[in-house]
């Protein structure tokens, strides 16, 4: 029994819907989610393609990384020395097998023109049609293999945040804290991590990679931590204070907590993403902070999580996507508030039959590190 039968079935259905003879997936050094969905195997290859048709699956990687046991979704792996060489192989197989006249292209938003032109030149008169958005929509609902992998990765977020709290001390620089957390995550087997950080007070309007700023007693220290294991990311957002929280920090956190709780209480199949965003924002509005729920101060009110740390659906008041069982997302009301600056709070959760289940176990509170 192929454990990816469910996924392949969905992909075949997508091929029928889009009227394509196959799907070509691309992955690059820093974005392999499309590729890994079709060929669920980790690879150090800086790029790769997977060509799936109803009849067969082929994985193309840079040598020598193609020398692996093929994942269950493909029958063969192929390797060439350079990106151009790999693209040539892809085009050659399409031509040899007469796959066409249309092939869906997944990852056209990252696939380099030079590689696409090489494929097209060799493949001949095949039309490549965009299929990235269609696949992203399909990927919002995770299959059973994905859910198992995400559940298996959740503990990394918890352990990673515990390491973060331990690393935060007055006198340390932001990038030193990240170095500690990265080292810890490597030790416990994380494949990658998406991490933003900020520290300070009302002057903090958002998060970036770490700076050389030194942490000070009284700081609000925030992070979005998103380790990856088995291909899947799990995100946790928490805020902490260095030393006891000020009344403003406590009040601010209380608003964030209630907003996130409102989202969790609402999330279930049939609810729209817009309703989730509205539930979060209403808490801010009731406190007189509605303007801080706009694009000027916040990016999104949550998002999907999976093979990529920032997937569809985007949680925003104008997104009408209907939640379904098996979707995995984080509802995080992260934004700036004049009470104590930018604050973050949220957990990755899975939509269940009648509600949702939070996958991380870290206490949902304002943390306090030694000041």
């Amino acid at each position, binding site marked *: 029994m192929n454990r990816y039968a469910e996924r392949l079935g969905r992909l075949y259905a997508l091929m029928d819907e889009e009227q394509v003879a196959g799907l070509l997936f691309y992955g690059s050094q820093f974005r392999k989610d499309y590729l890994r969905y079709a060929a669920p195997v980790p690879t150090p290859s800086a790029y790769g393609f997977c060509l799936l048709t109803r009849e067969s699956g082929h994985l193309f990687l840079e040598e020598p990384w193609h020398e692996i046991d093929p994942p269950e979704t493909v029958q063969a792996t192929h390797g060439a020395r350079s990106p151009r060489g790999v693209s040539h192989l892809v085009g050659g197989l399409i031509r040899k097998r007469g796959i066409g006249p249309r092939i869906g292209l997944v990852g056209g938003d990252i696939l380099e023109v030079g590689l696409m032109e090489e494929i097209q030149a060799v493949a001949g008169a095949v039309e490549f049609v965009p299929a990235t958005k269609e696949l992203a929509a399909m990927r919002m609902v995770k299959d059973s293999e994905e859910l198992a992998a995400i559940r298996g990765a959740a503990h990394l977020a918890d352990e990673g945040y515990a390491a973060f709290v331990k690393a935060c001390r007055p006198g340390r620089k932001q990038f030193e804290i990240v170095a500690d957390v990265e080292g810890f995550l490597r*030790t416990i087997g994380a494949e990658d991590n998406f991490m933003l950080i900020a520290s300070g007070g009302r002057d903090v309007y958002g998060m*970036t990679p770490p700076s050389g700023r030194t942490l000070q007693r009284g700081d609000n220290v925030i992070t979005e931590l998103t380790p990856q294991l088995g291909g899947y990311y799990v995100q946790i957002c928490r805020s902490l204070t260095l030393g006891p929280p000020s009344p403003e920090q406590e009040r601010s956190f209380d608003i964030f907590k209630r907003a996130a709780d409102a989202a969790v209480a609402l999330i279930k199949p049939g609810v729209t993403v817009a309703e989730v965003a509205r539930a979060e924002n209403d808490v801010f509005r009731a406190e007189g902070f509605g303007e801080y729920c706009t694009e000027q101060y916040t990016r999104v009110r949550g998002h999907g999580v999976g093979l990529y740390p920032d997937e569809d659906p985007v949680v925003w008041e104008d997104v009408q996507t209907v939640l379904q069982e098996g979707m995995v997302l984080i509802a995080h009301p992260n934004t700036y508030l004049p009470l104590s600056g930018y604050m973050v709070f949220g957990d990755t959760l899975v939509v269940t039959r009648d509600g949702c289940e939070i996958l991380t176990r870290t206490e949902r509170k304002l943390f306090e590190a030694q000041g």
Partner: protein
Amino acid sequence: MKRGLIEWDHAELPPAVFERRAALARDYMRQQGLDGLAAFSSMAQADVVRYFTHFLPYFNRAVYVLPREGEPILLCGLSNRVHGWIRSTTNISNIEASRDLGASAARAIAERGMKRVGLLGRGTFPVQILSSLARGAEGVELVSADDLLASLRWGEDEDELRLRRKAGALTARSIAEVELRQGLTAGEFAAYVDRTLRLAAAEDVLLQIDSSRGWPGIPGTAPLGWPARILAQAEYKGHWVQIGRTRPGPAVPDWYRQLINRIRPDQSVASVVGDASDLDVRIYASRGGSPFTAMDLDETIEPGLIVAIMALRESVELAGDTFAVRRGELECLTTE
């Protein structure tokens, strides 16, 4: 994403370096009759825009437009809230958030009255972005400016090399420092190297560590056997290096030294590989793709290139360093 320290230290890389580079680009535009240049930037294609601006995308993407006359502009997928951070780490002041980079670049080009624009690293633009740019820039001639990239000769640019040497020394040292012991896992090995490099202000670290035969894979949590092979790529201030090592063992084994000593600038990759039939040799070039792009057999190790030469011997010993290809020799950039 990049999650190390991203900052611009003006003492380490003075603004004049970027002014000189922009002047070179503008000379090229005048010679070629171009009104401007456009380049794409992402984590996987960061080097070109970084070379002119010190912009390092930690996430998301951007298109940089450098007019022959006037202020450059960065069209950027990152939101307005981080534009202050971008300004503090680059020489770019004109930044515009965009959800459709191709269309926004087309509009910026049209607004500046450009009629002929060179694409720096045309082949590295994503399919969707270039097609959106081409659609939006109707009436504008978009031509390849890849010969400018080749003429910049990063392997002879002292500012480029100085920072690569620093990246190389940090990386080589961190690998050499790992204390080998029974039961050490690949993850623990990686943790030491990763943490050490980030504490030294590296932005990004990619590691493969293994003790089974062959090229090393993604490090896991199983104990290593010995010898173990390490393939490391690290980035310091946007300058990547690549290193291969075997631990325990000399940083540069005799067989690898002999391989490098045989290589001559202007030699083809095919002849290097053919001359070393007892080794599995892979050569990577730094010319826009980040970190490095594998070279094909029909390519040449041209003077001015920065290359990483990795070699595996009898599936057990791995060695490799990053080199600047000079007219008469290869200069190793990754020594302790």
